[in-house]
């Protein structure tokens, strides 16, 4: 199964051909058995049939795959009165608005830490990284505490006489869900932005100022174009997990009026007999996300290579 590739010159002199492949073997077997095979199972279930109890039965032979379930799900999404359509549209709107808000907040923060933090830089970086070590569920739970009808947010607002009655923040408000997504995923945006902005040579900005550009102009003409890659990377890294998110919605809203693709998938998988629908939805989500995922893989591989220099 394992084949040694050609040897670059000056290398491989001392090693038997099987030497390095044997190191990779356990990991390769693991990925094949628990990453590739599961995807095949998803296909087999999505294109499978049902037994007399309505339980999905996977079909293992691709030649016999039954496209009925898949077509039905597509109809429910894209059909004129498909009831899954709104969830898909909503997902794109929420993720779009949340990613944009993330960018608007993250960019100035990353810019400040990269350029002006001075001696506080270490401390600021630790604080920016801290959310990664706090469980996502706990961070959302913290907001559930704050946003309850007798929570601190309502108490503060009513003591300031901004509201007269407690607002039901957790009762299916899109704004709560979007703010939850921003709060949850903004750290993923800040780090790539920081890395990108930190890499910009300050001499370039100095040159632009020396040549007479104003602050705003040198930001627009120098900093912004140089950070384009970082912005794109940040948007991809922050929005990918948002597409697969269902727990933010469950914790901060719980209403079907705000449900997203993730909720539809999670509900289908959690219900007896609806596995096939869940599997079909997972495949559709994969198709939607394949381009950003490939972009992310490429930039991760590139980042690993660039750290050498």
């Amino acid at each position: 199964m394992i084949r040694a590739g050609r040897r670059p010159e000056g290398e491989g002199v001392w090693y038997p051909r099987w030497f390095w492949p044997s190191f990779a073997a356990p990991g390769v077997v693991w990925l094949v058995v628990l990453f590739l095979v599961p995807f095949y199972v998803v296909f087999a279930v999505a294109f499978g049939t049902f037994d007399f109890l309505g339980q999905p039965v996977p079909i293992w032979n691709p030649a016999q795959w039954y496209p009925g379930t898949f077509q039905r799900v597509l109809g429910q999404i894209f059909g004129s009165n498909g009831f899954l359509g709104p969830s898909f549209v909503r997902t794109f709107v929420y993720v779009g608005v949340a990613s944009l808000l993330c960018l608007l907040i993250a960019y100035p923060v990353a810019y400040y830490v990269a350029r002006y933090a001075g001696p506080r830089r270490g401390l600021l970086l630790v604080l920016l990284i801290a959310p990664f070590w706090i469980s996502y569920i706990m961070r959302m739970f913290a907001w559930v505490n704050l946003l309850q009808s007798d929570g601190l947010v309502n108490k503060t607002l009513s003591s300031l006489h901004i509201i007269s009655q407690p607002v039901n923040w957790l009762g299916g408000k899109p704004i709560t869900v979007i703010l939850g997504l921003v709060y949850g995923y903004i750290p993923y945006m800040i780090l790539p932005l920081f890395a990108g902005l930190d890499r910009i040579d300050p001499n370039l900005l100095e040159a632009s100022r020396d040549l007479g550009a104003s602050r705003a102009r040198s930001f627009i003409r120098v900093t912004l174009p140089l950070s384009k890659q970082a912005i794109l990377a940040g948007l991809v890294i922050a929005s990918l997990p948002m597409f697969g998110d269902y727990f933010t919605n469950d914790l901060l809203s719980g209403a079907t009026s705000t449900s997203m693709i993730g909720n539809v998938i999670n509900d289908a998988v959690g219900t007896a007999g609806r596995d096939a629908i869940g599997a079909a939805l997972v495949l559709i989500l994969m198709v939607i996300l394949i381009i950003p995922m490939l972009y992310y893989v490429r930039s991760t591989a590139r980042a690993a290579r660039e750290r050498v220099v």
Partner: protein
Amino acid sequence: MSETAVQAPETQSPIAGNAVGRLRPWRDPWRKPRVLASFTWLYLAWSILPVAIAVLFSFNNGRSRSSWQGFSLRWYYQDPVLSVWHDPDLHTALFQTLRLAGLTTLIAVPIGVAFAIGIDRWRGRLPAAFNFQMLLSFVMPELIIGVTLLLVVSNLFTFLHLGTTAQVLGLITFQISYPVIIVRARLLTMGRDYEEAAMDLGASPTQALRRVLLPLLYPAIFASAVLVFADVIDDFVIVRYLSSDASTEPMAVKIFNGARSSPTPALNALATLMLAFSLVMVLIGFLVYRRMTRGERRQKAALGDLAAQI
């Protein structure tokens, strides 16, 4: 470093000096970025205060999670029924979390390290394809991986059963990419000179590996173990799909289940413990890592290594 260009009040720029005799504050090229600074601190407050408040109320001497009734440890161990210590449900969850984190780290890290070394040295298209597959598992939303694992356990590998075994296998699949990415980055920085020197001096490939390469990789291996452990503590999606019943639900799942239905500050206490575990883990990890790489005196790089691959 980068701020030298900006904060050098003594050196007058000729352009600014000539053009506007006396500098008005908004034309001063060296003014402090106060707006940006306050924005950044506001952001940090927003990002950390909610969690700090949740931690604070875990010490509340009352059932409320919004009005302070004095300090107590009742939700940790004093309450005979509802505290984390006495509620069997909650402390099962605590031990389940630690069990999953320990087992996953023990298996994922060795496999990942070996994979990284193998893939790095083995040339050709096949290893590139496996590396691509590994990176794909790293970027894929956890929901997709969780559902595929659930379907494979319930349809094909039915002998596995849901519960701890399935959870550990699933977590390893999801976590294996951390050691691979971190160790590969280290291998790329190191180059192959040390090993080749060792073998020129008469070491066999196995000796060069054991006595030269592995010791050089220890910091990276250690860092990835810390990362995996801390990340499993926080994991939610995979462990929830692959749990069998209440006895195999770890802390994150308990918090998710209880957050909207039966909230007492005991849940805050559980969340605080979860936070403490991962923060202590990362802190110890960081200090040990810094000690290990002392010779390389690259503190910033150490922090960066730990942080970069999240």
